[in-house]
């Protein structure tokens, strides 16, 4: 091995290997930075208690005439479920009985006719421990749209000195008296606001409660579905929009920030990773050319080694060692650079969003290792190919 090394190391160009090292290092760092930033930002953008939500679209049918209800037929729902843009579909199930709600603020009693709706839990953008219903408890958790509170604070409250402005946490402490009646039954419950939704523009109660109460207070087993919530890949997909238009479905305006932020994050990370891949690819081309040139310069020695009985793998070994050493050190160096880089933004990110960043570097390291193994396999492959080519020539 020592002699083979002594023979073959001649013509190794530190300059060429240096260029490869730097180019591949840049490529690797850029790719891994993309992965790391994505890991760290993703929890803020999607998942539980995200700052902004996933991509959901709520659709309904326009009301056309008095006395006719705009509802979705079971066939229409099945067809929607089968569409390629649909990831998941949930139905808004309305309460089919009368709800009369009242609150008491500073001695001022307000009461009104209300309604409830429910959607399956997985579509909720508000997570709360209190989001459950037990018939024995007589308590109903409620989620209202955040803009209802705004409506009250900047509308009602402004017009009356008696009605104070209230915060979200104050709102959560207020108990509502809810009187449900229908099908000859009537019962009074205590309602409590447990959260505010940006996504869902309705008064929501747990799905379990709607199922239970519809049986108790409504005769009609058949529930009319007038709104649907659909989880989609891309809410601005033209196929989706034209499908809605064709079938006369009207998507609700949704808070713009959510889908745009996730979209921008994906595009941003996509661009970063793409640039990284281009760098890595270029560096691989440099390495390939460099190895080919090196093998070409040593062609006579390689031939002679094969003629005195050395195997392809024995002859390839010094070159493989170079490739492995380079790739492993590039990988280690990149992960180290990423870990330093992460320190620069992680505190800022935690401070500006008021959240702890739970992301780890695990995915980054896995990606780094995968790239490293890929590059090593590629290198060993081209070295072997070239050597076999040389020994077959005669």
């Amino acid at each position: 091995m020592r002699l083979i090394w002594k023979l073959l190391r001649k013509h190794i160009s530190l300059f060429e290997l240096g260029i490869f090292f730097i180019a591949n290092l840049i490529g690797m760092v850029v790719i891994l930075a993309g992965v790391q930033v994505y890991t760290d930002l993703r929890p803020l953008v999607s998942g539980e208690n995200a700052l902004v939500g996933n991509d959901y679209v709520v659709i309904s049918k326009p009301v056309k005439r008095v006395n006719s209800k705009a509802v979705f037929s079971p066939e229409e729902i099945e067809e929607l479920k089968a569409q390629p843009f649909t990831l998941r579909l949930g139905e808004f199930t309305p309460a089919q009985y009368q709800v009369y709600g009242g609150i008491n603020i500073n001695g001022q009693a307000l009461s009104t006719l209300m309604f409830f709706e429910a959607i399956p839990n997985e579509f909720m953008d508000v997570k709360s421990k209190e989001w459950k219903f037990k018939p024995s408890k007589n308590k109903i958790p409620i989620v209202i749209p955040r803009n209802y509170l705004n409506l009250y604070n900047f509308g009602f409250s402004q017009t009356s000195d008696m009605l104070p402005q209230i915060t979200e946490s104050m709102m959560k402490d207020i108990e509502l008296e809810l009187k449900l009646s229908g099908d000859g039954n009537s019962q009074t419950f205590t309602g409590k606001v447990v959260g505010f939704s940006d996504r869902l523009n309705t008064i929501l109660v747990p799905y379990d409660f709607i199922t239970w109460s519809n049986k108790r207070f409504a005769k009609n087993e058949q529930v009319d579905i007038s709104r649907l919530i659909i989880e989609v890949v891309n809410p601005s997909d033209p196929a989706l929009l034209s499908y809605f238009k064709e079938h006369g479905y009207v998507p609700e305006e949704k808070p713009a920030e959510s889908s745009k932020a996730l979209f921008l994050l994906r595009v941003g990370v996509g661009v970063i990773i793409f640039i990284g891949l281009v760098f890595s690819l270029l560096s691989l081309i440099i390495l390939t050319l460099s190895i080919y040139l090196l093998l070409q310069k040593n062609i006579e020695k390689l031939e002679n080694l094969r003629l005195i009985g050395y195997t392809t793998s024995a002859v390839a070994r010094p070159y493989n060692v170079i490739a492995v050493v380079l790739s492993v050190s590039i990988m280690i160096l990149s992960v180290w650079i990423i870990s330093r880089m992460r320190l620069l933004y992680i505190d800022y990110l935690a401070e500006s969003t008021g959240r702890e960043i739970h992301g780890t570097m695990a995915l980054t390291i896995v990606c780094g290792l995968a790239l490293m193994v890929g590059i090593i396999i590629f290198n060993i492959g081209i070295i072997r190919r070239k050597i076999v080519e040389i020994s077959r020539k005669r």
Partner: protein
Amino acid sequence: MNTIKLKGVVPEIFASNKELRSEVWLSDVEFEQGKRYLIKADSGTGKSSLLSYIYGQRGDYRGDILFNDQNILTLSSHDWCMIRQSMLSILFQDLKLFGELTALENVEIKNRLTKTQPTRIIKGWFEELGIADKLKTRADHLSYGQQQRVALIRALCQPFNFLLLDEPISHLDDRNSEVMRDIIIREATRQGAGIIATSIGKHMDMEYNKILSL
């Protein structure tokens, strides 16, 4: 490997030559292990080509070459490595030494692969051939005759059934030729190997079982 057979072998460039007179080309020739053969040839009749074909270095011939009864075209690259490490050894006409390695390193690069000869024996050969003082000299700083002796020592650093010698003494004086011949006979006898030597004039003075003219 007990026999090397040539069946109607001819270099492609001679294939159209109808006036070819040869005891080897286009004939059936069999080389047996343990026997010694001399192939006499004029320059340009293809003696180096013949050894290159047998050694698997070149394939530009017609006809068949068989090791025992296996056509050598069916051998894989790995088979050739094994054959070159333990069955066939060759002293190339152009020697194929590595210029930047020393004389001793040129021998060791082979001996480390085959782990055949103890250093004592190798140094003994250097001694006998009168190049003991060149052990640590780079091969490209040696004269052609000295390089020829180094290449022979390298060729002996492996087990073999046949030893191919391409003009082994072309650059040696008579005394060194005799020393070389003695070493070759000793080693070939010890291994029970056959010898196939070529020459275009001056040939190694030993008893040949058969002399063929190319």
